[in-house]
């Protein structure tokens, strides 16, 4: 009797032991850190490697980009360029010049009609820089628009000049994406390599698995509610979203969002959100960030040809929710809807 039962008991104990072992010792727990900068939330979730140190370092890198590009912080290169508007040229760092060049190149894709870093006097006119919101008159808008285009910007090597004394540049439309570029450069060099890092910088994402081809599931935020309207699957990528649902004000039942359409001087109204997925290549974080505004301010009729222009330059796919709530995708991505339109 005893002999017959002993092996069974041993087997059960072994089984229970193994189950316990795997339950308690799965992959390392992710370390999540949340910081606040660039007027938004910055969250890093790192699994494996020296996670806490990685998170701290990523935050330091984002702070550096903020100090370099900020529209508000004294001593930033943007503030120096703006302070010299109409007076003379300013010498900037090679990194800053490269970022400006990238932003101007994205502007050129749609001839400055849908994205312009020199639109910031209009943002100020609408009160988005001071949060003292107001609806300007049509005359104020057309007057301001006259000097709020990048044709006022002269960029030669690392020398920058704004011709009109009233012109201003603001790199808020590329700074978060550019931060993700800088972070990705650093993550590649980290030893030991983390298994996964998810950086969420105000909704702009860096999905990093160190080339392990992780199959990421990226939720697309419902622009008129909490939660998601669906998701897309992606390899490691930068994911940038421009939307009208976080920074906006309402007057007389009308919504005015913070993204100013450079062709009109009014807040963009054609779409609710545009999400751009770009592959992991230098500057593709910044490019994706800027393209978010391009597609956000584009009418449906021109989105397809715009996409064909940028597809060869690292853009994997685009998800757009238009002003009526209709969703469309561009590129070889599959959008899986989790809610009805």
């Amino acid at each position: 009797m005893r002999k017959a039962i002993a092996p069974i008991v041993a087997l059960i104990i072994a089984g229970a032991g193994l189950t316990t072992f795997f339950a308690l010792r799965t992959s390392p727990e992710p370390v999540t850190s949340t910081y606040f900068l660039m007027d938004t939330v910055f969250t890093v979730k790192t699994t494996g490697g020296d996670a806490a140190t990685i998170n701290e370092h990523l935050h330091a890198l984002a702070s550096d980009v903020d100090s370099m590009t900020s529209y508000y912080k004294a001593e930033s290169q943007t503030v120096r360029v703006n302070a010299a508007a109409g007076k003379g040229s300013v010498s900037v760092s090679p990194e800053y010049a490269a970022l400006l060049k990238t932003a101007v190149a994205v502007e050129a894709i749609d001839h400055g009609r849908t994205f312009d870093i020199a639109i910031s006097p209009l943002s100020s006119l609408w009160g988005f820089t001071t949060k003292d919101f107001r609806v300007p008159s049509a005359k104020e808008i057309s007057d301001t628009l006259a000097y709020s285009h990048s044709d006022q910007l002269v960029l030669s090597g690392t020398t920058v000049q704004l011709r009109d004394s009233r012109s201003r540049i603001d790199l808020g439309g590329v700074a978060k994406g550019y931060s993700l570029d800088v972070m990705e450069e650093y993550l590649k060099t980290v030893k030991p390599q983390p298994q996964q890092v998810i950086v969420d910088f105000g909704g702009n994402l860096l999905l990093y698995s160190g080339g392990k081809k992780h199959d990421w599931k990226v939720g697309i935020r419902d622009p008129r509610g909490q939660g998601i309207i669906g998701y897309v699957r992606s390899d490691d990528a930068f994911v940038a979203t421009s939307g009208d649902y976080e920074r906006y004000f309402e007057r007389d039942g009308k919504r005015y969002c913070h993204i100013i359409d450079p062709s009109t001087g009014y807040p963009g109204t054609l779409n609710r959100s545009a999400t751009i997925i770009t592959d992991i290549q230098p500057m593709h974080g910044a490019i994706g960030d800027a393209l978010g505004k391009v597609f956000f301010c584009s009418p449906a009729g021109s989105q397809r040809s715009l996409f064909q222009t940028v597809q060869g330059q690292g853009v994997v796919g685009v998800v757009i929710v238009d002003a009526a709530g209709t969703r469309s995708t561009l590129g070889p991505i599959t959008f899986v809807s989790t809610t009805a339109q």
Partner: protein
Amino acid sequence: MKRSDRIVGVVILIALMLTIVSWIVMHRTRGAVAVVRVNDKVVATVDLTSLEPQTLHITGVLGPLVIVADGKGSIRVAEATCPDQICVHTIPARSPGDQVICVPNHMVITVEGKGTGIDALAQ
């Protein structure tokens, strides 16, 4: 019953209990719980399954915030000392992954709980 049989019985029982405990550890699920953080430190936790409405008074970086759980599964910021009032206008959070954020106050409400199945949210 022999003494050895009893030992075998106890051993089987322990093994069974170990298996059950492991199973629970592996598959534990939390009900929807809202966690309120200021500067990444937890300042309050609210059970959203509770039917009792609840009002929280917390202090953010800029000043006081009033957070209301309505007793029907939603949580929102009712009042805040911040210039833009984005948090107050944010749609209440109720499902895992939902957030209400007040950037000037460094305050984040996150609904935690099992599985949205999503790695990250593009927004």
